[in-house]
């Protein structure tokens, strides 16, 4: 390996010539080694992604995320675009004073900030639960590797 010409061609060996301590995961499908080329320690870390993806716990995680993220995204997009649409197409309604000279347009715009903060807080609360599920899946995946 000391002779540069001696190196395997780049098509077969994608082991990074240089890696920082953090360069763990192979990136991209072309970088992965064929199974018969893996060294023992590499093989120990190989994860059967299909089996992890088929776990009930993983499906639960995806479903839980979807249950929150999808409606939340639809909600904030609708709530946000209501502002330019109302300001643009119903200006008389939005110019109506609500509190002294302060009108509906300003209050609605201000409410967007609180909407965003509120939704972010809700998300963080739910995400805490997903973290626990994700940790469980990582443990199960480790056991899956150990059992082979």
């Amino acid at each position: 390996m000391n002779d540069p010409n001696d190196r395997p061609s780049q098509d077969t060996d994608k082991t990074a010539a240089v890696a920082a301590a953090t360069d763990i995961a192979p990136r991209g499908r072309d970088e992965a080694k064929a199974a018969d080329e893996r060294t023992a320690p590499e093989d120990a870390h190989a994860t059967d992604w299909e089996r992890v993806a088929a776990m009930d716990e993983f499906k639960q995680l995806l479903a839980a995320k979807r249950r929150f993220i999808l409606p939340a995204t639809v909600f904030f997009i609708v709530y946000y675009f209501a502002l330019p649409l109302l300001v643009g197409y119903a200006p008389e309604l939005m110019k109506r004073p609500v509190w002294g000279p302060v009108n509906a347009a300003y209050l609605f715009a201000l409410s967007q900030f609180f909407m965003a903060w509120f939704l972010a807080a809700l998300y963080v609360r739910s995400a805490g639960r997903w973290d626990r599920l994700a940790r469980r899946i990582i443990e199960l995946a480790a056991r899956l590797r150990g059992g082979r």
Partner: protein
Amino acid sequence: MSTPLLMFLGFIAVTLGITYWAAGRSSGASAFFAAGRRITGWQNGLAVAGDYMSAASFLGIAGIIAFQGYDGFMYSVGWLVAYLTVLLIVAEPLRNAGKYTMADVLAYRLHPRPVRAMASLSTLTVSTFYMIAQMVGAGSLVTLLLKDSGISFHTAVVGVGLLMIVYVVFGGMLATTWVQIVKAVLLMAGTLLLSILVIAHFGGSFGTFFDAVSRVTYHDAHGVEVTQNFLQPGLRFKPPYGALDLVSLGLALIFGTAGLPHILVRFYTVPDARTARVSVVWAMALIGSFYVMTTFLGFGAATIVGRDRIASNGGINMSAPLLAQALGGDIFFAFISAIAFATILAVVAGLTISASTSFAHDFWTNVIHHGSERHPGEEVRVARLTAFVVGAVAILIAIVLGPTANVAFLVGLAFAVAASANLPAILFSLFWKRFTTAGAVTGLATGLVSSIALILISPSVMGVDPAGAAGTMRHLIQSPPLFPLENPGIVSIPLGFLGACVGTWLSREPEAEMKFAELSVRANTGLGAEKAAGH
């Protein structure tokens, strides 16, 4: 020596100190590109805020609100709500599945070379355009703020350019991060102080404040005195296309932020996805408070300083500094000016490092050299060199364009490209199993080309100016605009998504579909994600 200049020099000294400290800790790729992934949640939140709140936010929005009232506030709203897209959809999967750049996630399932080449082109386009806007802005701002010190536009541009090169080349991501943190703290402090002074000026009463805002008197372009209610919408976005332009702007802001490369790379600097989430929440708290306060700055400038005085003392971008002068005298003016300067420096440093990372990691290592370094440390060396080249090019272009060039549309362009090219590719590679290399490349290309083309024929670039119009207001192409909207988002974003869909439907890539399970597990659980560097 003038007080503003002293404060500028003070900030420069502090940031160079940070760079010197960071330089000793920036060897190795993950240290240089991602600060060793050891930035904490609140630190990264401050850095995201510092990376995001550019001079366009601080000086630009305060100015637009001071001149056109409520409509300027529409930008502020979009700039915060956009972070919901980042928080809910992009930040955590990106941190889990990527390494240094946005393209890592795109290339995960697809053929890395074409995808990385396109993503890198899009990143470089966004960063360079955004940077030129910042540099020209910095040049004219510094000349204006330091007009008593005899510093010319050229000196200012070269100075800003050299500083950003020094931060990035020597200090890497760690120095950039801390420059952004210092700037964010200064900016928040200055804005808060200014807002308190504005309300204090009205006897601490919001009622009196809003009463004044509802009756702002100034002279219009024809010298006629008019009184307007600045709380009413419609002063900027006027019929017939105003409403549509507002929606189009909203689309570009909401979907563009989650595709801005210099924001996305920030999520690789934290240890894990949970910390990335925490940092978005910190950023939202800071960015949101800042944008709420822009109304006090803008309305305060409109009522306390007045449009007429701002117009004759440096123009719309000087609204916030002039407000500071009116409320707190010359020292406060110097302080706010120094903050504006810090703002620009932190943003250009962030842009430079994201452009260099993308070129070195995506283009040099992965496209040209098939994913491996030929010599140890090559990627970081290439990135340092790129930072130098990017800085030099930005300096050169800013000098050629000169202080009066109308380049504000370049910021809009950056958001439009990010929303139309980058976001469809990111979303589809994360959530659409069937997505293919051809889809990613066509999506990126359609989004990129359509945003640039539409901006070139929009009223931001095309228009007929009356003889003797001021230089900063002059259109680059003197002919009636072919596309009626200032912001292309409403057309180019659907085009970007459509391009990605059509490219996918016309091709098949079973290998990419097979890798979907792996990407999905990684993105959702963090299994196998890049770890923080040890001590």
